[in-house]
Structures are given as C-alpha cells and as structure tokens.
C-alpha cells in the first residue's frame, strides 16, 4: 500500500463519524443522525501533510514540527479492511517519506480501539489525559500513543 496525494475530488473523504483528532478514527456506528460529522480541512498549505489511502480514507500528519521531526497523526476511515497494512504504511510514510522521527496521536479507550494493531507497528501508550474529550454527554479520558524511529 502507498498513500497518494490529495485531489479536490477527495473532499468527501474528509468528513465522517469519528471523534475529532483520533489517531485511528474508525466510524462510530452510534453517531447521532443529526450531529455534525467531524471534518478536517483540505490541505492548502504546508501546515499539514494530508494523504489519501485509496478506498479507505485519509491520513493526516498535523502539528508538524520539521525541526524536531515529529507530527501528530490522525486517520479517518470510511472502510475497515486492511487496518494492519494501513498502519504499517502510515508509520513508514511518516518515517521514510516525510523523514520524521516521532509520530503520536490520541486514542480514546472508551471507544475500544484496536490498540493491539497500534502496538504491532510500534506505538506505545505514553500518557493518559483525564477527561480530555467530551463524548456522549460526558467527559472521557484520552491517551497519547507514540512511536519513535530507531534506525
């Protein structure tokens, strides 16, 4: 798998039923029908690297720090297959193509995310942020998961 560059025809992939900022944003089936979908901005400047995983969704490297070579990663998916291959690709793209040395993102335990898949590609849980997001009428904890390039 290889990520490809964003085209204006991909705009529909940038909105969906994910918690904003989630490292591995999977569609939430209980998203209220009248709640606004989460939307990320289309890439228009160097402040983010947003790529498309064909047939799956977007991968966004944001809060880019080219000096310290790190970025926060957000993924928003419309389809759920090939997650393991996608995550491998996301890490390889960040380390090899973008030449970053640290990738991190937010994981929300209450959503029961597949953290085993994150661990398989090197992500580790680094911190817990108590009550740092609002979801379904209450505050929920979030975690920071990160992976560091060791080569």
């Amino acid at each position, binding site marked *: 798998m290889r990520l490809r560059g964003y085209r204006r025809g991909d705009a529909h992939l940038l909105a969906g039923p994910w918690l904003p900022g989630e490292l591995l944003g999977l569609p939430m089936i209980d998203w209220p029908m009248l709640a606004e979908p989460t939307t990320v901005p289309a890439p228009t400047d160097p402040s983010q690297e947003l790529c498309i995983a064909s047939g799956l969704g977007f991968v966004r490297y944001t809060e880019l720090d080219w000096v310290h070579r790190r970025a926060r990663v957000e993924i928003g998916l419309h389809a759920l297959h090939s997650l393991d291959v996608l995550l491998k690709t996301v890490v390889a793209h960040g380390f090899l*193509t973008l030449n970053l040395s640290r990738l991190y993102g937010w994981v929300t335990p209450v959503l029961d995310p597949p953290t085993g898949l994150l661990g398989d590609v090197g992500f580790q849980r680094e911190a817990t942020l108590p009550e740092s997001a609002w979801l379904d009428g209450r505050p929920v904890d979030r975690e920071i998961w990160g992976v560091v390039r060791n080569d």
Partner: protein
Amino acid sequence: MTTTELPHWSSRPYSDADRDAVLALFTEADFFFRTGDPDTRPEWEILELLDEDTHVLLADGEVVGLYAVESEANNACHYSMQLRLRASAPLRWWLAAFEELVRANRWRREVVRLALRFDEFDDRGLAFARAAGLRAEGTLAAVTVHDGSRYGYVSFARIWEPIS
C-alpha cells in the same frame, strides 16, 4: 510517422486547461519535476510547482511531460532547465525532446551555459543526462531524503563557446 518513429513535438505554457493532464503526471512515483515525492503531494502543492516558466510538452498532441527554462544570470547567457517526461516515454524521446528544446532556446538568443541537475535516486534523469552527453560537473551530497535514505544531486551542463 517517420522511420525514426519520433513523435511530433509541441508545447505551450501551463494553464488551467492542462491541470488534469498534469496532475495525472504527478501520480507517477518517479515524476521528479521539482519534487522528490510526486505521488504523495497534494493538489495545492503540485500547482505551486508550476510557475510562469513551466510548459507542458506534447508528443503528437498528447501531454507527456513538463519543462521549464529559467535565466540564471542576466548578462552571462546562463540558463537552467527542468525537464521531465512521463514513465512510459522511452529514453530516445527524452533525447529528441531535449535537442528540440535546445534548438528552440538558442533560436533567438545566445546560450553559453545550460544547466540541469538530477537527484542521485533519479535513475531515468541520470540515464538521460549521460546519454545526452552532458558534462557531469559533480555531486552536491546529502541534499535530500528520499524513501528513508539520504541523497545528493548531480549537476550537468552543456556549454557553448561565447561569441565574444
């Protein structure tokens, strides 16, 4: 078509009418026109690579590449060229298009030095530069990172005797 089976070349300055054809060129992972990572670049960034010097190159009326010729020094007849053909274009197309571009650029002005440079990972660009008999001027090392490794770029030039 002649026995050499070379296409009829034409070109025009890049404009919005060529946008889809040009974006399609950048879906090729080795379409290294002003970028080392063409296929992962978003649309806005590709459009920023195309300036007023950028021309689309057409073979028999079909867009097959891009080129740009820029002045490097006002009074020294020194120019630089960026040239890229899509992956399906054979080496002899590169060579033929380059010679036509050289002829066109020297038609109404003196050119003493025409400089081109290619990244060390750019096999097709380097093969073209060597096959065209360009003067290899050396490598500036460790300029860029591509696919997890560090590379430099190789400078090439063709030089003509100045008239005075």
